[in-house]
């Protein structure tokens, strides 16, 4: 087969099915190193599955920085506002309370007593709404079937899914072995595309 024909052949197969290579690593440092090498060779990493958050992996993979911190800050402000309005209604307006022998019936003068509640609700709103946001963004909900390609990634293995695309699979496989992968499998996904 000539070079040109071979190229043609590969092109047609990639149209029919997308090929993904799953490389499994058993150490997070090794994985980090491998991600760097794979990206340096301009291969496309579709996803990395890890049993625990690997510090710095997002930066190495070149993912866009998370915006969850911004949402968290805003949720915190919502919580603070809810706390202020709630305590003002309950303790000052609806049923005025004598707080610490200082019955001034003014929110601001009794504010120190409400600070723990303001703090707690700020944290409560920020934490819970942040988690819910994270679930929604990750398309997670109760009873959802796991998208995890290999159950060992929930235990002690790390899986890197590399898009084989139009690359030479043999060469790519060899390359991944050299980065320290302990197991490599080629996944042909017919349903895609």
């Amino acid at each position, binding site marked *: 087969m000539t070079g040109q024909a071979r190229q043609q052949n590969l092109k047609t197969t990639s149209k029919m099915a997308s090929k993904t290579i799953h490389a499994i690593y058993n150490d997070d440092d090794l994985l980090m190193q491998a991600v760097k090498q794979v990206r340096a060779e301009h291969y496309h990493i579709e996803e990395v599955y890890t049993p625990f958050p690997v510090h710095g992996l997002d930066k190495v993979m070149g993912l866009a920085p998370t915006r969850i911190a911004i949402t968290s800050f805003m949720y915190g402000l919502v919580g603070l506002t809810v706390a202020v309005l709630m305590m003002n209604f309950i303790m000052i307006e609806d049923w005025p309370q004598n707080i610490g022998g200082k019955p001034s019936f003014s929110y601001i003068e009794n504010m*120190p007593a409400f600070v723990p509640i303001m703090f707690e609700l700020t944290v409560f709103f920020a934490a819970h709404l942040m988690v819910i946001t994270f679930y929604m963004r990750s398309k997670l909900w109760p009873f959802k079937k796991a998208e995890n390609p290999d159950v060992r990634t929930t235990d002690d293995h790390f899986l890197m899914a590399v898009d084989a695309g139009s690359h030479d699979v043999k060469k790519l496989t060899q390359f991944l072995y050299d980065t320290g992968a302990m197991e490599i499998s080629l996944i042909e996904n017919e349903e895609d595309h």
Partner: protein
Amino acid sequence: MYTLPSKLKLFAIIFMVVGAIGIVSGFLTAPSTTAEVKEMMASHGDGHGSDHSAAEESHSTNETHVAEEAHGNEHAQTADAHDSEEAHLEHTLHQMQNRPWSALYIACLFFLFIALGTLAFYGIQYAAQAGWSPVLYRVMEGITAYLPVASVILFVLLLLSAFHINHIFHWMDPELVDPESSHYDKLIAGKSGWLNVPFFLIRAAIFLAGWNLYRYFSRRNSIRQDDADDNRWFKKNFKMSAGFLVFFIVTESMMSWDWIMSFDPHWFSTLFGWYVFAGMMVSAITVIAMVSIVLKKQGYLEFVNDSHIHDLAKYMFGFSIFWTYLWFSQFMLIWYANIPEEVTYFVTRIEDYKLPFFGMLVTNFVFPVLLLMNSDYKRVNWFVILTGIVILAGQYINLFVMVMPGTVGTSWFIGLPEIGSILFFFGLFVFVVFTALTKAPLLAKRNPFMKESKNYHY
């Protein structure tokens, strides 16, 4: 090796000279007779005089007055409503005479706390066998080099108080514990087992000696480790640091009662030691970050990367919140319970020191929280410097509000004596710290965690 830039030396000396002029003129302008006080009040127009008497009147109705009178203390600094004009003027005279001493004392203590807090932070790094921070050890050692200097000055100031050259420590007045005297104060007499001049000085000597001994030996071992073949000196420092930290937290707590809380001898708070500690740590870590950034800008400390600054900024952020937490814990419980002998402390501060008392919540809490919350901002050096300056100003105010109400009462102002004292001690601090940095290589190269620290990456 770092060499002291001649510009920096000149800068420090100018600060010291200008500061000294401020301190001296503060002492010279302090009134020596009640006639001068009267004149000063008149020259300020109605403003000060009438303000003062208005405050005095309001005192006669609040709890402060009730509490003080119940204790039979005719001499307390804040609130007694004096019948005669002359007694009132004399009271103001004492406050005004105390002011330059208090200003000097606060500035001295503030910079001592920076060195002491750094020493404690350094001890924690050793005891925890921290891997991220060894590149900063020489910077910390440079800052703690100010500790011996500050200790000597502070001890001299305490001696001057003990020998009644100044009267900033009210409880040192022997009449208060003399049952025969008309000024006899039952509460202070009851505390005289702890609060008496000889024991006070002995304690101060023990505290200062203990801290300085650890500083001397840890620095010596750190330099010996540079040329060692094994980790012997590191291990010695590790053990010594663990011991020092125990000694430190006990003595720091007692120190805070002696040197700060005793300005209000009737009042007490059980978390005062922690509160002072939090302020000390946040100032110390801020200064570590600032000195590191300054040295980096001058082209030294090439091994200190943004991640190290990031971590220091996280500590600034965290300890600012910790300080606020303790401030609030102390305030809220006393405010809520509203027990007269406790609440006087805050009544005085809110009535006479409203702006600095609440203002420091902005500088020490709101400002650092908002500026350093974003992860990326902690890596922007000028952001850290800017926040650091505000934090340090806020922590000075914190100390100011702890000391001044007990020594000068309503006659406070941030003027010549205060600013002069800050400038003087700042100049001295810069001079001592940056001179000490020239004495040893800026990298403690043989530290067993050095490789980890150099490669540290957040």
